[in-house]
């Protein structure tokens, strides 16, 4: 192990995490969750065409590699006249991706809430929208935290794919440092450690959130 190189690379890689990986993850996950809620609702709406659209979306997003999705958005869309910068492209591709995976999780969670909760909400006078936001989704959150954290943690590492469309993040920085000397293995291990630290923080957050939501465990 070339310890000098390890030390020298740590700073730039951590900086790449702070300026690239972390903001990209946070932006894409928040947007992706909104998309996922929308898609989950469309799938269970009972309205055939809405449900079909959501099914198609989820199928394509989950079924094709994110790398290709990034390429199509960044290199393909200019051919039909839409040219986006790297960051918007990356956020769009990543959040569409989160949307596809999380939609299934959220759909399952919503369906796991007993019908009685919807009915009690209606009895109290709530519209379906109010029932969803105030009664059903808060309870669905509890069930979906562990699988959503799988998605979140995957996303942290998937952001590295954004480097193919010119976004500079943790992994790209690592590649840049390794390229002149060829010490990819060493530098990649350093990068892995930085990813790990990020994921430890997230997993800690997950634990805390789970405990908080367990307050009202049935």
């Amino acid at each position, binding site marked *: 192990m070339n310890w000098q190189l390890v030390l020298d690379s740590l700073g730039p890689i951590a900086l790449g995490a702070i300026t690239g990986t972390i903001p990209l993850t946070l932006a894409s996950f928040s947007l992706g969750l909104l998309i996922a809620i929308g898609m989950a609702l469309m799938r269970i709406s009972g309205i055939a065409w809405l449900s079909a659209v959501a099914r198609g979306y989820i199928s394509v997003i989950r079924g094709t590699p994110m790398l290709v999705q990034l390429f199509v958005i960044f290199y393909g869309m200019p051919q039909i006249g839409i040219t986006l910068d790297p960051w918007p492209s990356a956020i769009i591709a990543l959040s569409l991706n989160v949307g596809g995976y999380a939609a299934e999780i959220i759909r399952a969670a919503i369906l796991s809430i*007993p019908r*009685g*909760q919807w*009915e*009690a*909400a*209606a*009895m*109290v*006078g*709530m*519209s379906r929208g*109010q029932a969803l936001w*105030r*009664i059903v989704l*808060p*309870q669905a959150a*509890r069930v979906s935290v562990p699988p959503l954290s799988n998605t979140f943690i995957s996303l942290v590492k998937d952001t590295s794919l954004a480097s193919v469309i010119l976004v500079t993040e943790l992994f790209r920085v690592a590649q840049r440092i390794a390229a002149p000397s060829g010490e990819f293995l060493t530098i990649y291990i350093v990068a892995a450690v930085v990813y790990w630290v990020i994921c430890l923080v997230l997993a800690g957050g997950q634990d805390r959130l789970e405990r908080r939501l367990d*307050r*009202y*465990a*049935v």
Partner: protein
Amino acid sequence: MPSEHTDAAADGLLLSARGLHKSFGENHVLRGVDLDIAPGTVHALIGPSGSGKTTVLRSLNGLETPDAGSLRIGDLAIDFARPPGRRERAALHRASAMVFQQHHLFPHLTVLGNVTIGPVRVQGRDRDEATADALALLDRVGLREKADAYPSSLSGGQQQRVGIVRALALAPSMLLFDEPTSSLDPELVGEVLAVMTELAADGWTMAVVTHELGFAREVADEVSFFDEGVVVERGAPAQLFGDPRHERTKRFLQRLQGPFGG
């Protein structure tokens, strides 16, 4: 206390249902149900499992939509010849308030949250005012000190009492109870029935589906016996329990007493 807008119509009834029909797929569950409830009275609905009692009660609250028939509660009149719109269903939700068998409290809200969410979020009442009213109601059922607890930490009887307070807080013109004690431990049944008896004494109009014949006998003003989707017999409890006219009613009452008596 019952809300002020308890309006009796020309016929002197608060609620009047005529010819309610409802099918689930092939299953013709309600086959022409009539129901009349005068303001300030307690109406008990009894009958065997599957006879349609719950379906009727849910129809009154707008949770189920009959295929035919008509319904009037206060000054709200609905003909089910054509399916009611969202507005009409919302009006039905408002007209009465339901206490569910499984209570269906909102587990992520505190007791106080459960009671005030309707008044504050739906009816748009002032939060402080609604909270004060809710605490007063909780006090009445002996649960004021549980205001900040979550439902999961309450006993079944306490949960059911919170369910009743949640319904009361909506200030409906009538209360609907669907077997409010049948999921409770025998020892907890008493506390819930006691609260209901008080409400009846206060003059609330109530429709109660129940297997507690004792309660029906003592508290109800009128009893309807359901079987296979129709009201087979109705009358004052003394008459219906003491001297049932129909064979089916007799058989049901015997069966419910069970092999080892009550």
